[in-house]
């Protein structure tokens, strides 16, 4: 929420020892707990092989080192309210950060001593010499015990010092860190993009070490570039340099429409060209992201627009996948009568759409009369039922049971066959269907049906009293969501070539929901952003992401991210205006009031209805 400029009086900074000791100790202990937990979850050891900056910093160490900084910052951050006087930040905040870091570091020292003296490998599998060695930086027990409080102090001081930096320094520091991490994390994509088709080896040679990770000169260059961009950003905030984003926001009417058209065409062209420059791995990644974008857009209609919390969404994905597999594969279950043809993918797709609609109605009809939690639980059940049906012996003759359906052919376009071995073609196929899904979501949201969905999300009983047939309208949302998911299923079948019940576990439903929530419920761009971040960077339920090393910790990070988003930014990465309003009702009203847009209850006749907009 863009709050108006705070007009707070600032009091002088407090003395360094004027600490809230209790708060400092609490945060310190929390930090110690998190550090020990992360260590024992084996993150440092298993991520140690992935280098960020060769040879100084690996992802493993990074998984520990960022936490004291954040804790050191959090311990002295306060919520600044309008019009209330606050103390300036100073030595006190820096010291608080340092102390928190020391306490957290002592936690790791304790862990080092304990690992050295006791063997708890039985319950704690990661209580290992490898961890001990890593925590000691390979230098023996004494070093390990001493280094962590010292390191913690340093990092905590840095975190606390972020408070006393000027906004400009903070922005630049943020950009520098972001640039270095970004260039390191996106290593695969960047190398792929610059060297697969384009002759820019000299750039990647400069940035990256030969066995992965940034080289030192690369890290410095990335930091400089990040710093430069950060400085530009500061200038833009001060209005020295124009920003395209602000210019765009000021456009209205036909100019805005024209700008939108240009943006959409640019995005379309970029989507068409980009895969040509990329290699197999990155295209594979993009194809996976695309599949989840398609799923998430469908779920977004159900959850984001109509407000129906569907936890069994994978059912429709499964129906799409299995229907395509059975209709196109020669290797399907042998109980099928001869008249069920072995058809072309596009012919199968028509049947798939039909089946998805039927499944949507079939699952929707009993579920739709329920509300809230009950509905969520029942959909969860249906999601599992569908998977178990495909797995069952009863339908084994048709669906292949646990063996699934194999030998699914690709999509034959006449001049080219789109199949899993050619991820670029798969990506194009997915992109076409994503474009379709985006168009459908966009058109429906602004239609009579979309308004009815919104009304139901706001207050179902009132919506019904206002003449909306809630059962039909909600079923419609279910059906639209089901069809979009079945598209994804159909492409998935053609992509992987074989389909098993294990591809449709409940985790898929959860991941799609997390994508929608983290990305921004009800917002098309948000959903795409969510899929790119979660599926692209971290990886899907079975698909590896950019950080393939993270696959062990994927669910842990999903969970942490979800909790973080719920607490700090419930509207998602790219929020929907309406959702933001719902979630920040009070702040929104205050903002509106500050812009004197809330009309006071009229006291003096008709004039007050005509307060001009600010």
């Amino acid at each position: 929420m863009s709050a108006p400029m705070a007009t707070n009086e600032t009091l002088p900074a407090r003395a360094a020892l004027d600490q809230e000791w209790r708060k400092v100790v609490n945060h310190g202990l929390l930090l110690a707990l998190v550090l020990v937990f992360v260590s024992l979850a084996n993150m440092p050891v298993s991520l140690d092989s992935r280098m960020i900056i060769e040879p100084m910093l690996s992802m493993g160490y990074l998984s520990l080192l960022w936490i004291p900084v954040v804790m050191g910052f959090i311990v002295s951050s306060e919520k600044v309210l309008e019009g209330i006087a606050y103390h300036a930040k100073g030595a006190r905040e820096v010291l608080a950060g340092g102390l928190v870091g020391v306490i957290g570091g002592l936690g790791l020292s304790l862990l080092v001593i304990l690992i050295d003296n006791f063997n708890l490998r039985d319950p704690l599998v990661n209580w290992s010499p490898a961890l001990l060695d890593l925590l000691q930086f390979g230098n023996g027990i004494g070093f390990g015990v001493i280094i962590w409080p010292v390191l913690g102090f340093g990092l905590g001081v840095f975190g606390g010092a972020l408070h006393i930096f000027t906004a400009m320094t903070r922005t630049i520091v943020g950009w520098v860190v972001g640039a270095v991490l970004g260039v390191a994390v996106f290593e695969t994509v960047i190398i792929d993009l610059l060297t697969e088709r384009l002759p820019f080896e000299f750039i990647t040679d400069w940035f990256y070490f030969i066995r992965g990770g940034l080289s030192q000169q690369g890290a410095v260059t990335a930091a400089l570039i990040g710093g430069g961009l950060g400085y530009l950003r500061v200038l833009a905030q001060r209005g020295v340099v124009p920003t395209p984003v602000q210019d765009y926001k000021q456009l209205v009417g036909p100019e805005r429409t024209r700008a939108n058209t240009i943006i959409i065409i640019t995005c379309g062209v970029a989507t068409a060209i980009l895969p040509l420059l990329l290699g197999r791995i990155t295209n594979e990644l993009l194809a996976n992201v695309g599949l989840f974008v398609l799923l998430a857009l469908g779920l977004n209609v159900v959850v984001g627009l109509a407000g129906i919390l569907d936890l069994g969404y994978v059912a429709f994905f499964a129906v799409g996948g299995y229907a395509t597999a059975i209709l196109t594969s020669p290797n399907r279950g042998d109980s099928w009568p001869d008249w069920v043809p072995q058809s072309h993918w596009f012919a199968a797709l028509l049947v798939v759409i039909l089946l998805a609609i039927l499944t949507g109605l079939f699952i929707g009809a009993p579920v739709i009369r329920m509300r809230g939690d009950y509905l969520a639980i029942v959909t969860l059940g249906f999601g599992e039922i569908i998977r178990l049906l495909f797995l069952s012996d009863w339908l084994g003759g048709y669906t292949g049971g646990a063996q699934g359906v194999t030998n699914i052919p690709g999509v034959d376009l006449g001049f080219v066959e789109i199949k899993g071995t050619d991820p670029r073609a798969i990506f194009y196929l997915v992109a076409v269907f994503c474009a379709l899904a985006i168009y459908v979501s966009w058109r429906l949201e602004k239609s009579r049906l979309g308004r009815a969905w919104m009304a139901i999300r706001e207050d179902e009983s009132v919506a019904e009293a206002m003449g909306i047939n809630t059962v039909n309208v909600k079923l419609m949302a279910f059906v639209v969501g089901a069809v979009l998911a079945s598209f994804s299923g159909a492409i998935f079948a053609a992509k992987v070539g074989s389909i098993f019940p294990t591809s449709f576990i409940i985790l898929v439903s959860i991941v799609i929901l997390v994508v929608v929530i983290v990305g921004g419920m009800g917002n098309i761009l948000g959903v795409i952003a969510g899929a790119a971040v979660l599926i692209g960077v971290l990886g899907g339920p079975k698909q590896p992401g950019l950080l393939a090393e993270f696959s062990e910790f994927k669910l842990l990070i999903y969970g942490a991210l979800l909790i973080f988003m719920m607490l700090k930014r419930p509207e998602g990465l790219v929020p929907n205006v309406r959702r933001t309003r719902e979630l920040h009702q009070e702040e929104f009203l205050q903002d509106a009031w500050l812009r004197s847009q809330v009309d006071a209850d009229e006291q003096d006749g008709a004039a007050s209805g005509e307060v001009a907009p600010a």
Partner: protein
Amino acid sequence: MSERLLTIDNLSVTFGGLHALKNLDFHVDKGEIVSVIGPNGAGKTTFFNMISGMVEPTEGDIVFKGESLIGLDPNQVTARGIARTFQNVRLFANMTILENVMVAQHCRTKQGVFGALFNTGGFKQEEAEIREWGEKVLGFFGSRLVGYRLDQPASVLSYANRRRLEVARAMATKPEVILLDEPVAGMNPRESEELTGLIGQLRDEWGFTIVMIEHDMGVVRDVSDRVVVLDHGETIAQGSYEDVSTNPDVIEAYLGRPAEEAS
């Protein structure tokens, strides 16, 4: 004698052992303004909930234009021409003011997925009509709900304007009968006086028939053709304002019995 629009015959509803309404008879003629009054807990809102289909009566019949409403869903009742407002304002707070009245026309319109996806001529025309009618009903309240307000969320409105928007939303459903549940509650005297005038206009200029629950006796006196008094789920009096306001049963229901008569 004008056309009988809504007839309620021997209507009862019980929640567990509680008789919320008992053997209620009631009717509204076309073009009437009828007020339903009664002390708190008399069953007035239950009465509205029952007409609008949100509560199923245990016994009795509701006939609207010769057709029974028993067993219909709220949306079907609305589609047949009975709209309502709510005592505790229940707008779609995060939808814009215009969207609030647009969505209320759902049952009067019929464009579906196909029209929306292909942006057909029919779809465009219907959207334009929905918008036009929406702006027209909002215009009923002067400049308060139109202009730059159209695209603001309903949550920024003042209390009185929310009440007005509720009435506009009910009007947007193109009803014949509007049920107003305490339309002036929480308004200041000037505002309620203005709304009283508007309720008269609703009938005279827009042709709506009004049934209104109201506690403000000034408003009831000014607009009602007829007043029905409920107490403990039963009709205790019916007639013009003057008749019921002097009726001893009504006075007793509101004020209690004088001490010497109590036994």
